[in-house]
């Protein structure tokens, strides 16, 4: 594609504006975290007049931030990994087998994307309490319950994307593996999964991100021991004051590892979406 000259200017202006829109809140987050609370609550200034790192120190004692961070990390990691494993099996079945109920299964799974969370929040909560006491595992107010909930939230989209991805892998490859003596599962593990790695990583990222940011279910289904960051960060708005500088500092600190991980893996996300949703 030959680029006309005017495109250069459109590109500079267009990308510049998009960049400005994207980066402004991030800039404010960073600068507010190093301002004293008084300055943050006062009139806005682009350049901090006084710089202090006290927010990065105080934030650990205002709210048990490290504890929430660990909870979020455990919940999101296990939920995303298990979700991907379950999605791989289901997507493989839908992509490679013609079985009765296949269409019904796909449609049902997909339609759960439309369920308003409010509608099943309370029933789910009740099921967890009752099921939990029946099988002797705490599902309510525990990380286990959150993990199960979140992994299911990301399942529909994950299955959907992986079906698309698996469909794009030629069946001939499976057949070749079967000639080598593998069954369908062998073909899945030895041929399909390696070929679909970018798609799988993409789904993994998606599942992790959606678990990481969820607020509604976490606010009802966690107690202090299992509280996640999404809810825990609200603790900086206390009865007495809203510690904006600490909110910003804490947001920054907990975001850095996630954003870094995301950016490191984004190449897979693009590849994964390329063959998955796009095929």
């Amino acid at each position, binding site marked *: *594609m030959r680029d006309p000259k005017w495109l250069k200017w459109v590109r500079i202006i267009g990308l510049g504006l998009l*960049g400005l829109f994207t980066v402004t809140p991030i800039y404010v987050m960073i600068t507010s975290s190093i301002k004293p609370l008084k300055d943050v609550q006062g009139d806005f200034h682009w350049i901090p007049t006084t710089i202090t790192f006290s927010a990065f120190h105080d934030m650990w004692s205002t709210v048990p931030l490290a504890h929430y961070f660990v909870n979020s990390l455990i919940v999101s990691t296990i939920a995303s990994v298990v979700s991907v494993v379950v999605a791989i099996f289901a997507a493989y079945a839908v992509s490679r087998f013609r079985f009765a109920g296949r269409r019904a299964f796909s449609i049902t799974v997909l339609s759960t994307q439309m369920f308003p969370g409010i509608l099943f929040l309370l029933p789910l909560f009740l099921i967890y309490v009752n099921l939990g006491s029946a099988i002797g595992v705490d599902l309510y107010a525990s990380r286990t319950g959150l993990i199960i909930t979140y992994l299911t939230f990301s399942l529909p989209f994950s299955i959907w994307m992986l079906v698309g991805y698996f469909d794009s892998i030629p069946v001939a490859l499976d057949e070749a593996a079967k000639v080598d*003596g593998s069954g369908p599962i062998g073909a899945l593990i030895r041929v399909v999964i390696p070929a679909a790695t970018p798609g799988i990583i993409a789904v993994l990222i998606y599942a992790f991100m959606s678990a990481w940011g969820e607020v509604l279910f976490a606010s009802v289904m966690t107690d202090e021991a299992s509280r996640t*960051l999404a809810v825990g*960060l609200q603790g900086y708005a206390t009865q007495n004051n809203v510690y904006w500088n600490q909110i910003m500092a804490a947001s920054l600190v907990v975001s850095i590892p996630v954003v870094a991980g995301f950016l490191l893996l984004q190449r897979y996300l693009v590849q994964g979406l390329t063959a998955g949703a796009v095929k």
Partner: protein
Amino acid sequence: MVVSATSRPGGGRGSGDPGRPPPPSGGRKGRIIPRLPVRLRRLGLPYLLILPALLLELLVHLIPMLIGIGMSFIKLTQLYIRNWSAAPSAGWSNYHLAVDFNAPVGRALLHSFLVTVAFTLITVALSWFFGMAGAVLMQGEFRGRGVLRALFLVPYALPVYAGVITWSFLLQRDSGLVNHVLVDQLHLFGDKPFWLIGQNSFASIVVVSLWRWWPFAFLVLMAGLQNIPRDLYEASAIDGAGWMRQLRSVTLPMLRPVNQVLVLVLFLWTFNDFNTPYVLFGKTAPQEADLISIHIYQSSFVTWNFGTGSAMSVLLLLFLLLVTAIYLLITSRRRSDA
């Protein structure tokens, strides 16, 4: 899970290799899939594969959903939450209450619904447009491309709370950046406008939502663009097509399947999004930005009237199912026509 030590070691895999000899080592771990006639196993395998997903969907989505629908037919207020079976049947009255647009409850719901539709359409359209513009302009090699791409993705990677709470800080009337720029620096307004209450709150929620979702559109569309074969562009260039023409005749048609999925997903996510308005406005949103997810949350969780709240949710679900069905019908027909 049945683990049989006596099952044929190759049994789990081999359906098309009857003549295969067993491996020499007899001490291997037992098979996961029990010994079954080959044909039956082949029939059962897909069901076994979808079983975990199905169980999870049943537990977390489908059964609670059915209970939720059941809740919409009873008078479930705080008087009965301890013992649901004692709650009197409400018949269709919860639904009557919700759709009686002449009465305040129904009118408020309708208002909230219309606000949400407008919000969703604008947000999805702008997200798509921003994503498209970003993806198209990012094509080709130039300096700083990688950095810019990473930067664009940051809002999507940030935890919702962190991103949205920062926006609520920017939108403060006295100490926020938005008013600082618009009023103090650009002098566009005489008096500082409010962004989190009153009329402007609608614009605020659109902008914040756009900020969060357009990177996703950007990501998907960028992936879609990479998948368009180069030779299509080369062929059209030989035909003398300019940049705009190529955009119209090659890029957009080739992206149609991507767009079909992207727009639907964005629509559903935006429509049902609870996190963004909740963090931005709290438990009660201003009337102008009273999105349906918050409205129903208020109707059920804040006032403990779960019957009515459930009826509203069921109506919402029916609407979304209808929209999705129509959308898929139209877009897939168009695709088969093309």
